[in-house]
């Protein structure tokens, strides 16, 4: 499996003005705030339940994403990665968390942006590698569990499949 997406939701939901994200993401590009090639900022605030404001990168996109009307930080890996599936998953979660930390601390949001580190949505953005089927879910679950066990402790979270069959293979992980 490759091309993981990790979404970490904003808490409390609603009432966050995304406009500062444009300046913040431009600054991240200017200051090379993330250890990867960042290219541009895309503003989709006009699209209901859309990608919000995105930071477009070569290896990954980051976004304050409003899909399904749930605002969160969406990390989306575009290029393939070396290592085991677990490594790739850990890397994606790590990148998403790092972005959340930077956003939370950024004065541009004046403390209005906080993330719930106890809930992730993890998806595989590649239908050929990871079809959204029962078998696909079992395969993803087998990869996600060891990572979450190490992060949160075995038995301390609920994992379930979310999303319709036409959507990307996605699991929701909520810490109890």
């Amino acid at each position: 499996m490759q091309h993981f997406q990790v979404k970490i939701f904003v808490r409390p939901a609603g009432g966050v003005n995304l406009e500062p994200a444009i300046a913040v993401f431009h600054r991240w590009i200017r200051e090379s705030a993330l250890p990867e090639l960042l290219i541009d900022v895309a503003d989709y605030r006009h699209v209901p339940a859309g990608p919000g404001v995105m930071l477009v990168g070569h290896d990954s996109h980051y976004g304050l994403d409003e899909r399904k009307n749930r605002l969160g930080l969406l990390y989306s890996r575009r290029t393939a990665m070396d290592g085991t599936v677990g490594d790739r998953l850990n890397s994606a979660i790590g990148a998403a968390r790092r972005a959340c930390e930077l956003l939370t601390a950024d004065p541009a949001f004046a403390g209005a942006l906080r993330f719930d580190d106890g809930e992730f949505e993890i998806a595989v953005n590649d239908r050929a590698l990871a079809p959204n089927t029962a078998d696909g879910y079992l395969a993803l679950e087998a990869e996600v569990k060891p990572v979450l066990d190490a992060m949160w402790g075995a038995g301390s979270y609920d994992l379930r499949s979310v999303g319709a069959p036409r959507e990307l293979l996605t699991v929701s992980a909520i810490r109890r």
Partner: protein
Amino acid sequence: MKASNSLWKQRLAGRIAEPMAAELDVYENEILLKKQGKMEDKVFAETRLRRGAYGQRYDNGQRHDGVAARKLTFPQALTKGPGTEWDAPGMQRIKIPYGGMTAQQLEVMAELAEEYSDGIAHVTTRQDFQLHFVHIEDTPALMRRLAASGITTREACGNSIRNVTACHLSGVCRTQTFDVTPYAHALTYFLLGHPDCQSFGRKVKIAFSGCRGESCGLAMMHDIGAVAATREVDGKVERGFEFYVGGGLGTVPQQARLFDEFLPESELLPVSQSIARVFARLGEKKNRNTARLKFLVSKLGIAEFKRLVLEDRATLAHDPRWTAHLEDRDSRGEAPLKPSSFLQIEPVRAPGFDEWYKTNVYSQRQGGYSTVTVALPLGDITSDQLRALADISRAYVKDTVRTTVEQNLVLRWVSSGDLSALYADLSAAGLASPGAGCIADVVSCPGTDTCKLGISSSRGLSATLRERLAANQFSMDEAIRGLHIKVSGCFNSCGQHHASDLGFYGVSRNKGGYTVPHFQVVLGGQFENNAGAYGLAIGAVPSKRIPETVERITSRFLAERQADEKFQAWIKRIGKAACKSMIDDLTAVPAHDADPSFYVDWADAREYTIGDIGVGECAGEVVNPIDFQLTACEREAFEAQLALEAGDVSKAQRLAYESMLHGAGALLGQRLPVLSGDPDHVAGLFREQLVDTQLFSDPFAGAKFAHYFLEAHEKREAAASADRARQLIEEAQLFIEASHACYARMRAMPAVV
């Protein structure tokens, strides 16, 4: 780049129509060849452009971050065109002829937007879809997935016949003469990949319109515009087209000229073919700025242009496809899913329904049916919304939608009694914005968001205007609400600002040593009458003052209009001087220290610069057909190598021989106007024209390489063996090198007639 790219070919085997599958194999091999350094940049650029794979802003590896221009260091030191980084994100344009799509195609679009782009599919002003931030190496897989659903990206960009557009209401329209859809379909597939359309100096855009008076087809601003017409002969109604040529926007906008008041339907395809041939033969090739068809028509005059076209038409060998489509033209129309019905009076309507009904619902010519416009903000739709729309189209209409030139989508044949339920379903998907085709439904090109040529942020401005105007659009006077706003990021007019009441295009101005984003204000263009008149440029206003400019102009129109006076008539009546004075004070730019916000564009945070403007790929470079042909020979030789490695010796041998045959044919094509593809004929002429004349002779090796081909031709039926195949492949490679050298020598010689 996706790890799964190689899986799709196998997975979709048998699901892609053969010519398309072969064409995609060719493209994939061209990518491999380019990566191996075996293809010239300009040839590869044109080859990808002709498949809709287009460049995007910053693909020259440089971006201004607001403080300084910085290098974007992409991982691979490769290029995909002159000055275009291989790894830089690109745009994929996807042709949707006449905007017609099925539910299944919407679902595929959703998947592709999600997996290869940024989760957004964008509808253009020419009924195409575009995906942004796509990696060039993902494009073959992306194209295969489209092809498996019946969509091609072939000739979506480049110097080719672009998407053929048509009114989205055609077939259901109350004012139509007849449904132009079958004709748009037939012309699309007749001209797609047609040999007569492969050596243009620029692109050719074609539009169909079902009637003269409305706006949907915009025929007058196209290279070829066909407006449905009928005539009566001996009591029989005949179909045809009021046929126009040479229209276009851009820096030199031109209304199309009347080519024929009535071009019979049977002549539509052959006359279009002859127009293509005349354009390919006589159109400008060197100077891109004067290479569109409109310049040729102007240069020759419409009468002479028409004479040349008809003269050419008389020489064409009959092609049964010219009229085959007419046999079942009436059975190709869409049918409803449900019986007709009428909207019921309900005591309480859902909030927003009445406004939506007023602006987004059109009563079809067929009683009891409606066409519903799904207004997309700036033409953008998410993958989730595409899937929801696919479901909706299956539930309410027979599985189809159409894109529109106003960057929206329509559902046709909705049984009118279903409108309340449909509204509820669209609302749930975030697709029930009211105000379709009204002032808040702003049309915009991509501008500086993604376009290499963008000067100002057309989308940033459009999003702002949209938000502000939508907030009170239903309390506006109808005369204002019904106006159209269109925005282009530069003078190239992709936002079609000329054909709009209020149009804007991006320019820049200097103030105190700083560059300031501006928009040129263009007033009084006509969207109606097929874009029957273009607007008047009255002056440039700083970008940040455009909302105020809109407010100023619309208020003044409302105050001054006489009776039912239209906006265009008002602009004409008050004249350019008055228009200009209306905005004079708005052109002022405060000093940088006083208000730095003027020096930052909409939806951006960087100090404005024009340093990111790149070289456009709108048409690519003009590449001589022989460059393509010899590149194709190299690809064939490469494919022969692949076949040999796969153990298919006879295929390897055949491909190696054919690569030489095609190389010989390409060279002969430079000297002889018409050439049969018969191998004996080609070999005979090759000997006579190129070997006996010593034109093909290498200064050191003499005729050695020529004899590789002639011998391979003589022994082409010989039994296949691995050794023979290997030798032939080597000889083919040398022969192709010699062909390039021969072509260089031919270029240096005076032309042979």
